[in-house]
């Protein structure tokens, strides 16, 4: 994520997308993409009962 004004700000964000993985919520079934960490919670119901799922992109 970068930068301040002008051409230098015009960057691709492929790095962020490569870091993100799919998760599924064990409570409400919501699927979402998240950059992995110890604190992943479902953005819909806020449950911590979430697990990684593999998905073809």
């Amino acid at each position, binding site marked *: *994520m*970068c*930068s301040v004004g002008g051409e230098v700000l*015009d960057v691709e964000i492929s790095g962020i997308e490569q870091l993100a993985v799919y998760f599924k919520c064990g409570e409400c079934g919501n699927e*979402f993409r*998240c950059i992995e960490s110890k604190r*992943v919670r479902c*953005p819909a119901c806020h449950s911590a009962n979430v697990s990684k799922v593999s998905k073809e992109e």
Partner: protein
Amino acid sequence: MIPLNDNEMLLLKGKEGTLGIVKAGGKQYFLETDREEIILALEPDDLLVASGFGTDKNIISGLKCVLYMIREVGSPFIVLPKNHPASKRLKIVVSAGDRTRISCSIIPGTHPEQDILCGSEEFDGVEIFGVKGGVEFKNLTGGKIERVPFV
């Protein structure tokens, strides 16, 4: 280590630019691209770092406002697509995570790393780490650090 709690903002003031730094507070943040939403779950001691070109009162108020909008109001990070005309209008940009590297020599399309934040030349190469109870800097050779109230 420079102490920083959840109620404070650290300002690193240079001659041409200013950085505003707050604790991320262990919240979830949202990165919105033109294609999808990506969730970023941060640790309490991770940092939100805002970089502004300028050192006047307006820039400092702007840094605080941007960080407040993100952390306290819950505004998402907006990731503009490449070639978007708004890219050249932005005065303040933000990075989030446990480590941020300041660079003044970002070349479009050449930085897959996600911990680089554009800053003024005097802060080029400075690394900022969120550590327990505070902030650590590496390669910092100038600038004035102030701790000010945030919330």
